[in-house]
């Protein structure tokens, strides 16, 4: 789903300026200036045909470059989500080896581990990789742009973990009293994980298009 959304998003991004806008159409100097924060140094293969940017014309990227951008972004996001889920589930199941049953506090820790892994891989790597394909953009600004949006699902994930903690406290008082709250917290965190995934990707692509 994430991949499909990113492809749609990339496909929906404007064609390189000057194409499809009628004969003689030219981008404004303001737009061009805002799109070129850095000068590309090592352009990846597949974008060799793209002319070097100038102060008056925006950077044009070939289809292979866009495909590479989307594929690598999606790939990193998939890896980060997978790693986050594996880390969270491994933490959750660790107590089973001791006494054959889950420990809500360990599971709660697993949720935080899950969020941390997702954040560390996705938020740190995705903007880096995007600017590798689009080196005219500054990675810090891309990361800031993505963070504008992706912080909200991350906050929702943390809220889910907090909700889970409340449920775990209720469970301590009596079995069955807090598991619905725990389930709501878990669901919120897991959904947030995927929403973070999508938004991080979309926001990054939006920042470098």
């Amino acid at each position, binding site marked *: 789903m994430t991949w499909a959304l990113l492809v749609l998003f990339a496909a929906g991004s404007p064609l390189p300026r000057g194409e499809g806008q009628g004969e003689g159409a030219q981008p404004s100097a303001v737009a061009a200036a805002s799109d070129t924060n850095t000068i590309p140094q090592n352009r990846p293969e597949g974008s060799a045909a793209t002319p070097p940017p100038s102060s008056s014309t925006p950077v044009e990227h070939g289809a292979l470059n866009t495909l590479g951008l989307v594929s690598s972004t999606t790939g990193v996001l998939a890896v980060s989500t997978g790693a986050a889920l594996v880390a969270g589930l491994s933490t959750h199941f660790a107590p089973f080896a001791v006494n*054959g*049953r889950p420990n*809500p506090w360990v599971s709660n820790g697993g949720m935080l581990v899950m969020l941390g892994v997702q954040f560390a891989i996705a938020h740190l790597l995705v903007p880096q990789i995007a600017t590798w394909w689009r080196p005219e953009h500054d990675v810090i600004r891309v990361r800031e742009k993505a963070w504008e949006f992706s912080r909200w699902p991350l906050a929702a994930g943390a809220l889910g973990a907090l909700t889970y903690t409340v*449920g775990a406290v209720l469970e301590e008082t009596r079995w*069955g009293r807090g*598991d619905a709250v725990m389930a709501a917290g878990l669901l919120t965190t897991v959904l947030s994980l995927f929403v973070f995934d999508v938004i991080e990707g979309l926001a990054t692509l939006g920042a470098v298009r």
Partner: protein
Amino acid sequence: MKTRSLTPTPLTRREILLALAASGCAPEARETPAADGFPCGVSSADVTTTNALVWTVYSGADPLFVEWWPASDENARQRRAVEVIDGAAQLDLTNLTAGERYVFRFTDDTRTSDTGRFRAAIADDALEPLTFAVSSCARQTTALLPLAAVGNGFTLDAFLCLGDAVYADGAITRSDYDAKWRGALARAPNRAMRRATSTIATWDDHEVENDASPDHTTPERFSIARDSFFAHQPARIDAPNRIWRSRRWGRTAEIFVLDCRGERNSAAGQYISPEQLQWLKQGIANSPATFKLVLNSVPIGNYPSALFQALAKDRWDGYPEQRRELLEFVDQHRSGVLWLTGDFHIGVAGRVALDGVGAEQVELACGPAGSNLPNPALTYPSGPQFDYASADNNVVVLDLDPSNRSVRARFVGGDGRVLFEHTYAL
């Protein structure tokens, strides 16, 4: 200064088995093979004071015989020819002595099966301690180590099987079901348990399909699955196609075998048929036995948790009127009733309810004998209603002592270790 060898320490067989079990991979290649010609070993079932059903699967074409003798006197060996139908052979041994332990085997005079053991039920007026093993949920693709540990390591009077002895999901035709059963019973842990003692078995959903119920499972499928069940879990039945029945073990125990799957009618609020409910109530009220063990494949206990309640439709909780009627009846006639159950993939020991109706009744969820994934609940049952809950694969060993009306329950894991032990006064 200490030095460390860089040579890796070889893993022991036990470590490899445990690692494979933990990974969900059954170590089938390392299992002791069955005797040639008898791929599923041997089994005995539904013993009485005088009779025992013995069973095997035979892959040969020669005349087949059963030999049996008291364990204490091999010279008293008897032998009878047995007919093989669709590859399976079954015979009702007669003229046994109550309470005597017996040995039996099948032979075609060239090849001989595993040697099986059983104990004839104790005399109707006998009152003595008994030891039963109880379990459920033996997914045939898992290691099933607790079955081997208990079958090989304990002297048992009988094995009480609470269903899901085979995961026949996906089977449609009779040959599909038979193949699933024979694949499962050929597993060494199953053979170990079934040759160690006699079995008294009910079924649960996976003998038919996942969450099987007449509400959505066709009668044809139930019929085929039931035929295959009886062909592989021999039973002394009171009426055609009827799984529910009881077996007496003297004045110590009576075992009530319920059919919690095949007679449901959710539209009428019936978890079991009115006939079965009436039979159970009468049986409990009239039984002279100290302990009434009810083989109830899905828990009757109340699990007051939102996640467990979300699945209440599949158990007694989803049929509150019948459940209340039965529990109130047992409360009134309470005298040694012990609920034995499975299905949940958690071993549980505790009371049927925290308070109110059933609060003084004890239910043990026995097994799973082989589950590759633990129950996914976020928390497991705990006090004050429950004494124990764990997803560790297990077989429960019950020591019934009628002298003080106590039942010691030991949850035994795949390595033979006792995971939990508790004694209940009933």
